[in-house]
């Protein structure tokens, strides 16, 4: 039965629909494999018993019209799940059980999917290596002691290790695409406003987007189709006509113009990434696309602007974790003492660091110099993309400036850690869709990804291009299950 674990999401859906396999069978397989993969530390909350019950319930009265019929899925622990502990991998929410469901996960269950459990991530999604989680580091199935990337590190690791057929993450500055790139999987951050933020623990409201993380592009299109919806409960959700991403997916990209931004050729970028990028261009040409050199002149300023905007919003979004209404509390002599102790002990170092950055850039006398300045830079970055999209249909870049690194390698140097998101952050700042697909291996045999950036709401466009490239790249990577005894 082990080969069942190798089925992609869309293959699995077909097998279930054709009754070749039951929901209970496949759910049990994923539960067993997840149970024997504790070493990766991907799960922070397991709902295996309920999942099994739900799969039996599905099999008893199956609805094969659903898009994810009886499919077991584990999701990032940033999505609030009704009656299932939701922690954002933070001590401050260690005992928090929501009485409500996020819109995105609700869409999954409405489509027939079954919750397997909640996946580890960086605390409040703040991190690029899944080393800031209160529940410990996540290990990549690629290699022992290797980070899976972050912040959706648990999701990427579980997906790559085949502990879930697909998953969803959230992406504020690259948190889906960077771990996808590090683990040889596909990750898509939709246009801002595509997926509802309702019920997702907020990091930076103007940047956060949920998105699919899958084994291939087809799966990605299917999962996006399920989770993307207009939601009146989110004032920033946008009511546009969403295509049937999966059924409309095609490889006809002839004549598409693909931009190559010269500013993404950064200093110290390893040769192998440069080469990978070149190869990507060749594949695109082979598919009939046209390669055009473009300029995104303010790229260099994106990261510093991001490290003003995101912490500023976070400092305010995380003010609600004060020990009063829910979560962890340390008693104090008075209200202020209680707040200070609760937040000091409830948040980890990286979260505290970002709250402090955010508080500082908004504080009296510094707002104009930092926050306002950053919002102006953000406008310039957006303008860069607008100009570029007058000339091209999509943009091709590397997903990350390097491949995955070892646990502990960058924890002492926050700036070098932040630099990991150099290619992904501009996409969040401009609210655009971006997808990372596996494109090759580095000298250590660690996966590397390429990123496609699209026009607002043109997820279909980048999915189609990714679909075409995927075929040419023909990325094959099989782990040896080293973590399973």
């Amino acid at each position: 039965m082990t080969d069942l674990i190798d089925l992609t999401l869309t293959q699995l859906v077909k097998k279930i629909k054709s009754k070749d396999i039951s929901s209970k069978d496949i759910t049990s397989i994923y539960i067993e494999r997840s149970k024997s993969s504790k070493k990766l530390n991907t799960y922070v909350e397991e709902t295996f018993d309920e999942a099994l019950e739900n799969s039996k319930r599905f099999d008893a009265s199956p609805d094969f019209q659903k898009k994810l019929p009886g499919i077991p899925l584990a999701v990032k622990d940033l999505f609030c799940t009704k009656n299932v502990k939701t922690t954002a991998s933070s001590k401050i929410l260690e005992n928090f059980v929501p009485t409500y469901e996020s819109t995105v996960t609700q869409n999954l269950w409405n489509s027939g999917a079954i919750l397997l459990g909640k996946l580890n991530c960086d605390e409040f999604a703040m991190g690029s290596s899944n080393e800031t989680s209160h529940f410990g580091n996540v290990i990549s199935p690629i290699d022992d002691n290797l980070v899976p990337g972050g912040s959706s590190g648990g999701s990427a690791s579980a997906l790559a290790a085949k502990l879930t057929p697909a998953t969803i993450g959230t992406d504020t500055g690259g948190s889906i695409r960077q771990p996808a790139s590090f683990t040889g999987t596909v990750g898509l951050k939709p246009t801002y406003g595509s997926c509802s933020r309702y019920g997702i623990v907020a990091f930076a409201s103007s940047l956060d987007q949920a998105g699919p993380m899958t084994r291939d592009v087809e799966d990605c299109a299917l999962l996006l189709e399920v989770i993307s919806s207009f939601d009146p409960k989110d004032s920033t959700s946008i009511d546009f006509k969403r295509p049937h991403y999966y059924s409309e997916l095609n490889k006809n990209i002839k004549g598409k113009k693909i931009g190559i931004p010269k500013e993404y050729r950064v200093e110290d970028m390893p040769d192998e990434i440069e080469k990978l990028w070149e190869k990507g261009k060749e594949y695109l040409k082979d598919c009939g696309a046209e390669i055009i050199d473009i300029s995104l002149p303010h790229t260099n300023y994106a990261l510093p602007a991001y490290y003003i905007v995101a912490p500023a919003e976070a400092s305010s979004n995380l003010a609600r974790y004060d020990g009063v209404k829910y979560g962890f509390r340390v008693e104090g002599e008075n209200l202020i003492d209680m707040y200070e102790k609760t937040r000091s002990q409830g948040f980890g170092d990286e979260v505290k660091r970002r709250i402090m950055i955010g508080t500082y850039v908004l504080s009296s006398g510094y707002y104009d110099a930092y926050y306002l300045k950053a919002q102006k830079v953000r406008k310039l970055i957006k303008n860069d993309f607008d100009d570029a999209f007058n000339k091209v249909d999509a943009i091709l870049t590397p997903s990350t400036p390097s491949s995955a690194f070892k646990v502990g390698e960058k924890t002492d140097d926050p700036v070098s850690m932040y630099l990991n998101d150099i290619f992904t952050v501009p996409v969040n700042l401009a609210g655009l869709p971006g997808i990372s697909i596996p494109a090759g291996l580095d000298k250590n045999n660690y996966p590397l990804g390429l990123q496609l950036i699209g026009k607002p709401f043109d997820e279909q466009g980048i999915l189609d291009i990714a679909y075409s490239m995927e075929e040419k790249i023909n990325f094959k990577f099989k782990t040896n299950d080293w973590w399973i005894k």
Partner: protein
Amino acid sequence: MRKDEYLIEKNGNKYEVVIGLEVHAQVLSESKLFSNSATKFGSEPNTQVSLVDAAFPGMLPVINEYCIRQAIKTGIGLNAKINKKSIFDRKNYFYADLPQGYQISQYKNPIVGEGSVILDLLSGPKTIGIERLHLEQDAGKSIHDIDPGSTLVDLNRSGVALMEIVSKPDLRSPEEVNLYIKKLRSIMRYLGTCDGNMEEGSLRADVNVSVRKVGNDKLGTRCEIKNVNSIKFMQMAIEYEANRQAELLEEGGLVDQETRLFDTKKNQTRSMRSKEDAHDYRYFPDPDLLPLEFNDEFIENVKKEIPELPDQKKNRFIEKFKLSPYEATILVSDLETSKYFEKVIKNSDVKLSANWITGELFALLNEKNVEINKSPVSPENLSKLINLISDGTISGKIAKTVFVEMSNGNMDPKQIVIDKGLKQQSNPKELEKIIEKVISENPKNIEKYKSGKDKLFGFFVGEVMKASSGKANPKLVNDILKKKL
């Protein structure tokens, strides 16, 4: 004419008091500003709290259209500029009854800009400038006196829409503040945008007070007295604060710009926060919300719902009904009074109606301490009473007796007149009998009258009235007496 001037005198130096108000008016609406829970006053604690109001992770604000309309209406009532684009900002601070850790408010771009309110002072009208009106969320309530060891928090009020109406520093005395609050309240009650109920906290104010020597143009340093919830307390606080500041200046001291609290037990203001803990609200645009925009058509539609406002009504009463400005001002000052008046005059003499309402009715309401809409004498019955006077059925004096009867259970005045036999004596023959009796009983006074003491005519009228138990028709009595004498 009485003077409106209010000055503080210290050591022979006269100080002018400069006052500006920030009025917080609770918007009348079914549900809250950004959430769909109820706003009703006086419900069981925490029974009107949604997940948004309690700031659960991932919960998002969605704005209530009706609250926007209410703010626009109020803006129009204040003759103010309506801003078609405004921004919601977060005001960040920690407090037990502020679940989000920030209040959603409007900082730099409010929904309503400059406007004005006209006060009717003894010396004539005075215009008070309005700086702005903005929408914001109310906080919850901290309760300190139930549990001796802890403070309890009730979030029923959390998220209710408030309009903050900021005046220019144009007020000069406690009496002007009284008139200003009453005028604002009256306008909002006419509009139905705020019930103005100060006991329930739906209208409260922060009072900014400074003093300056008479003749000095420069504004003095002001103190802000927070959250005063009755006009009487506002006046007492201003009086105390103005004297405190003047004394301080006389002693050669300086006024500190600070926030103060009015202690209603000691009738004093006292400093509220130490400098060290000074607030830094770190305002920034709420990234969960988009800019608030509407077009002219939206405003025009709101305008259609605007009723006749106090100033317009007053002018109509003066022009159409020839009421004095004083009477008109009193009759329009309160929406319910004006409604009452307009009901009475539907079928009755206007001048008499105005007199009766401002005289007997007000005295009665005062004595019974009830609002006019709960008046023991209905407008219909008062109208009947006035008509009984007009058509000569009873005299004005008898009418007062009837009115007292009516007030004990809203009885029909016609019935009272019949039951008590109070109908005016208008039969000339009957009256002649009485008059002849009076003449025959007072021979000395007849002589005096005839010898030129004209003033004694009144004496005879009085005697006749007495003899008829007040029921004699005064006009007929006059006529007959003149003939007889």
